[in-house]
């Protein structure tokens, strides 16, 4: 053992390596991404690591590994679980040989997601056992336990951290490489009664799964991670208790130091719910406060348990309005909820005088981001026409911000294509566009293109190809020619895919060449059917900036057209002239191409 300073996701990755994992795949998504990246950095010799094209493929890969006896880890964010749910629901029925851990990072808030869905509820729905860690150390240990449990009971197992656990850092105890478990070599043994899902098999397995989960509720009741801290001192004869899990438990422990030692239970294995342990916690209590994020999961389990056992205990939480139904918990929200519940008055914080109005800082596309140029080109080309701009998931969702205002819809990965084609059938007079990034294109846009083409939709597909998965921190994808195994491979061509399925108009343009980009969009937009423009220019966070522009303050007429039209964060107005922040400007030259006074010089020339 030795001490390392690790992010929760790094701890999970090292835990998987220590557990002898032999295959790791997933699709990037905040807050889960660093798990796979860290495994790749510490990849054991025999192990296969890849960013798969999407979560469904990743889950199917993991299922394949698990029938060979090798341990597999599949990683995704909560939205990705929706994509992977088809194979997962079935793997649960046929079971596994090698341990299979499904790492799904949930995002209370949400901070960087479309929904506040709760993987604990998904665990109950899919019947897959679930671990819920509170901090990096616990996550490190839990993933090793999860592998053992998975193998012992031949079931996939969820490990479900939330953002604040995945992205917390802590100095933690980890194993030395000599202490790592050695995974078995893969050996697929043919057995169609086991690996081929048929109704008769599913019927038998369903019964077995229910029995196993009843047993696991007992096993989890003996699990020390489902810990109960006893009441003492001022609370020795209190009939109130607090129950929690995940990061909220750490907030509750801190609050307990202020408020006194109230009885406190942590639910570390939400499914199957550790009923016996919960009964032990409930014994003698009259009122319980549930502190959790996302669904009122523990709250409902307790109500169910009280109903089943005829216990007269008031269960308070989200459903009773004692804590908010949505959003993240914080140190302060947990402290005040507990203080209110326990009737302890807290010293009010010293009131600060009201500060001056604070600037709002919505996230924006980076200075020099080629997406800004692409959106601007389409906007210019389509000025004055009836349009629909369907956005998608990635940095380019930020194209919705003023002044670009170029995202009319955003739903889920690849959905822009479906929305654009539906509207094109229903409102033939409207010129519809679907914007999709390169990684999203491979992950989930291709079936949408085929569907549109075959079913006679009419819209313009804009592929924003910056040669990386930028939003999640620049992971490779099939268009990049790099793999997580360190190979240089032949990239899959987006043009090739589009032409291959039958598109006849596929044009590739540098978006920073503004006149050409505008002209291309104008020309392509009026063509009938499904056609594509690929805007290709690398993400500036990866490409080295090629200089910067200069502004001649005496030539600048102060019209602020450059700021008003494109909103590059490197540009600001000092009251007389526009100034450029040299630390941010990449010299992309977009602003220079708009300046009516010719006050902007330098930067790249794209022609």
């Amino acid at each position, binding site marked *: 053992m030795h001490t390392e300073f690790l992010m929760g996701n790094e701890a999970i990755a090292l835990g998987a390596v220590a557990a002898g994992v032999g295959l790791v795949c997933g699709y990037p998504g905040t807050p889960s991404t660093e798990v796979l990246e860290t495994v790749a950095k510490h990849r054991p010799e025999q192990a296969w690591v890849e960013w798969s094209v999407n979560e469904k493929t990743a889950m199917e890969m993991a299922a394949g590994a698990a029938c060979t006896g090798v341990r597999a880890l599949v990683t995704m964010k909560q939205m990705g679980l929706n994509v992977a749910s088809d194979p997962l629901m079935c793997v649960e029925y046929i079971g596994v040989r090698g341990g299979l851990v499904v790492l799904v990072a949930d995002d209370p808030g949400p901070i*960087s997601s479309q929904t506040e869905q709760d993987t604990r509820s998904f665990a109950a729905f899919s019947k897959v056992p679930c671990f819920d860690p509170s*901090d990096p150390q616990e996550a490190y240990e839990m993933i090793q336990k999860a592998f053992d449990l998975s193998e012992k009971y031949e079931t996939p197992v969820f490990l479900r951290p939330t953002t604040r656990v995945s992205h917390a850092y802590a100095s933690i105890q980890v194993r030395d490489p000599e202490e790592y478990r050695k995974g078995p070599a893969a050996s697929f043994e043919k057995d169609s009664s086991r690996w081929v899902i048929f109704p008769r098999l599913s019927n038998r397995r369903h019964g077995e799964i229910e029995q196993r989960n009843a047993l696991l509720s007992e096993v989890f009741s003996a699990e020390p991670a489902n810990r109960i801290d006893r009441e003492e001192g001022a609370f020795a004869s209190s009939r109130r208790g607090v129950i929690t899990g995940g990061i909220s438990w750490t907030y509750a422990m801190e609050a307990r130091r202020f408020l006194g030692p109230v009885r406190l239970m942590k639910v570390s294995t939400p499914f199957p719910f550790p009923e016996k342990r919960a009964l032990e916690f409930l014994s003698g209590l009259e009122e319980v406060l549930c502190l959790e994020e996302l669904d009122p999961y523990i709250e409902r389990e307790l109500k169910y348990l009280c109903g089943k056992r005829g216990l007269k205990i008031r269960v308070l939480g989200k459903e009773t309005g004692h804590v908010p139904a949505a959003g993240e918990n914080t140190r302060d929200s947990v402290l005040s909820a507990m203080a209110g519940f326990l009737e302890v008055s807290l010293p009010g914080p010293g009131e600060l005088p009201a500060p001056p109005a604070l600037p709002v800082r919505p996230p924006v596309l980076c200075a020099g981001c080629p997406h800004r140029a692409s959106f601007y080109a389409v906007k210019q080309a389509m000025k004055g026409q009836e349009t629909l701009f369907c956005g998608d998931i990635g940095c380019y969702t930020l194209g919705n911000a003023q002044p670009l205002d170029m995202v009319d819809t955003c739903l889920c990965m690849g959905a822009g294509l479906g929305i654009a084609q539906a509207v094109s059938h229903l409102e033939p007079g409207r010129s519809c566009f679907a914007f999709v990034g390169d990684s999203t294109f491979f992950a989930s846009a291709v079936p949408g293109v085929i569907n549109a083409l075959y079913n006679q939709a009419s819209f313009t597909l804009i592929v924003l190809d910056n040669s990386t998965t930028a939003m999640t921190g620049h992971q490779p994808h099939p268009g990049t020619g790099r793999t997580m195994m360190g190979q240089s491979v032949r990239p899959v061509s987006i043009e090739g895919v589009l032409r291959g399925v039958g598109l006849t108009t596929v044009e590739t343009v540098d978006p920073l060449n503004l006149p050409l980009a505008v002209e291309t969009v104008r020309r392509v937009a009026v063509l009938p059917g499904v056609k594509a423009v690929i805007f290709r220019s690398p993400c500036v966070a990866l490409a080295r900036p090629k200089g910067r522009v200069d502004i001649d303050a005496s030539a600048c007429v102060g019209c602020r057209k450059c700021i008003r039209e494109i909103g590059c964060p490197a540009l600001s107005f000092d009251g007389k002239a526009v100034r450029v922040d040299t630390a941010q400007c990449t010299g992309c030259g977009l602003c220079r191409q708009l300046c009516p006074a010719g006050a902007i010089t330098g930067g790249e020339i794209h022609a």
Partner: protein
Amino acid sequence: MRKDLILCGVGGQGTVLASRLISSAAMARGLPVHSAETIGMAQRGGSVFSHIRIGEGVYSPMNARGEADLIIGFEPAEAVRMLPFLKPDGRVVVSDRGVVPVTAALSGGDYRPEAMIEYLRDTVPNLTVVEAERALSEVGHPKVLNLILLGAALFDGSLGLSEEDLAGAVERLIPEKLRETNLRALRWAGL
């Protein structure tokens, strides 16, 4: 030793590296460290923070209101935004250079960083204001504000770490060719 800190600024200002240096320095002294920071979309020019909690007996990586011993503000308005987290007798080290968001540039620029500094002077008894432009030009590198601010907190004693502790962290975490400049920035406040 127990210390609770908050670093705050705007995505891209280098708060993450500064936080990593502090954590590494504290760990080298054998102290346990918990921390939490903004990752994801906000890194594209939004408000970002790192909470760092050094010492025994910590459960949560996040600070509560009124708990932080020290706030290092890389940007005046961001320091003001995090002020509710400061202890009554806590210290604020802040750069006086504002980062004007595009939204303000668009609407005609109604954000005045000086107003934030004035507010801090009125409300925070233990305040260190770092003149960013002067410091950066004296160090001679445009991108080392993070180390300059760390140095300011180091030399006014509020960090609870020594110059050697931090210099050691710089050795471990910063590539050789940038080390010299970063050490110069770290020591600027001590000159």
